[in-house]
């Protein structure tokens, strides 16, 4: 199915893209097109002008710094998944990238486009939130950095102004210490995870079976010492109009011994962090999401500390 008609401009530089955004009424940036084109084909979006930034190599690439990774906005999910630098500096980010959509979606879809699209359930929304990352944007008056907690303003709405462009994402590193990948460990364990020292992180999601688009996602990063949680960050997606941290769950985990029972009790605090704005649609009703979300959070926690049984 064709999209409605539009004017097309190819930007030669970030500066030119910003200028074009200012000049053309009702214009949208086109990156990988894997959210925008499907919407346009369904007539759910009808921008008058598309400004193609797909050729801007300055927005592509991954740089590892002390304590954080910088990912250019146009870097694809697949490039992130296959990057050895990301696999070392933040294995959670690499794994999540490798689980987005399917190989073709990962070959075209970009992290900047995904965040700018601001689907409430997007994988990157939940993961950058749990990692406490930030988004760099550039506009006519220069660059600024938006903390992820301030970035999402509602479903499909962000703090990026109409004449601004997302240029990069800053993600803190996550060095899994104390044990390997959660999915491969823990078979047969039924005691606390005494060996866990340092930071561990995991993500669990329930996906739509056809598109693999997440319906509900739960992510955790646990900082542990001798099997006890020193501090934790927990985020959920697909529940309320934006990805959200879960302070009640985080508080319930802090100081606790990392046993399955304690994790479950903490996950069950999630309802306190959601309010009643819970999304319901044809994939999952609000009640269903409310019931399943703590389960996803619990799964992420169990995987993170190697107590998962599958």
């Amino acid at each position: 199915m064709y999209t409605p008609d539009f004017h097309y401009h190819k930007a030669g530089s970030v500066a030119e893209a910003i200028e074009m955004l200012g000049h053309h009424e009702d214009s949208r940036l086109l990156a990988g097109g894997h959210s925008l084109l499907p919407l346009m084909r369904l007539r759910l979006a009808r921008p008058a002008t598309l400004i193609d930034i797909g050729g801007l190599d300055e927005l592509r690439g991954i740089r590892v710094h002390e304590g954080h990774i910088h990912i250019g906005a146009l870097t694809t999910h697949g490039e992130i998944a296959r990057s050895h630098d990301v696999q070392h500096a933040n294995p959670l980010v690499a794994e999540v990238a490798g689980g987005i959509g399917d190989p073709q979606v990962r070959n075209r879809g970009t992290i900047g486009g995904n965040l700018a699209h601001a689907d409430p359930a997007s994988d990157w929304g939940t993961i950058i939130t749990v990692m406490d990352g930030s988004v760099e944007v550039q506009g006519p008056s220069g660059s600024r950095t938006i903390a992820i907690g301030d970035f999402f303003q509602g479903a499909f709405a962000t703090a990026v102004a109409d004449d601004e462009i997302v240029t990069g994402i800053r993600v803190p590193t996550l060095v899994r210490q104390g044990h390997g990948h959660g999915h491969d460990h823990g078979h047969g364990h039924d005691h606390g995870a005494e060996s866990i020292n340092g930071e561990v992180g995991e993500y669990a999601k329930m996906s739509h079976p056809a598109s693999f688009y997440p319906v509900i996602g739960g992510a955790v990063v646990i900082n542990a010492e001798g099997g006890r949680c020193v501090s934790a960050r927990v985020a959920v997606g697909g529940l309320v109009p934006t990805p959200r941290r879960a302070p009640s769950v985080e508080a319930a985990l802090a100081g606790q011994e990392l046993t399955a029972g304690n994790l479950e009790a903490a996950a069950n605090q999630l309802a306190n962090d959601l309010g009643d704005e819970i999304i319901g649609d044809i994939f999952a009703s609000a009640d269903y999401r409310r019931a399943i979300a703590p389960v996803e959070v619990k799964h992420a926690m169990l995987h993170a500390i190697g107590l998962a049984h599958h």
Partner: protein
Amino acid sequence: MKVPIKLTVNGRSHESEVEARTLLVHYLRDDLGLTGTKIGCDTSQCGACVVRMNGSTVKSCTCLAVQADGAEVTTIEGLAQDGNLHPVQEAFWDNHGLQCGYCTAGMIMTVAELLERNPNPSAEEVRAGLEGNICRCTGYHNIVKAALAAAEAISSGAGGG
């Protein structure tokens, strides 16, 4: 709005004027007559339209022709070399990795990329790699078999490709 584009498809360069909203799959099928690439859905999910663009597989129904400006595109018609089928094509034939054939071009393009990235995949890895390709006929059994056979043929140097 008409936009001029210049690209290489299966080794031949083309210069065309396209409506901005022309999808790559329509450009390939309707303008160039390369009808091996199919359209099986309106939701970017089925993979019948998969082609290679600058080396990576893409769903050509979710890519504008103007986004392929300057690119090198390979379709199923361009996979055989010097009259020899690509080893993945050969393996689909040998293992009857199809029934109606509608998904086959996309399946083969995807498997070819999969084997370049992971020359020795497990059956499970093949299935994961085919997440973006839907087959309405076969139950995937022979498709997975064909992919594994192609991996073996390529790594043992048979099949020429």
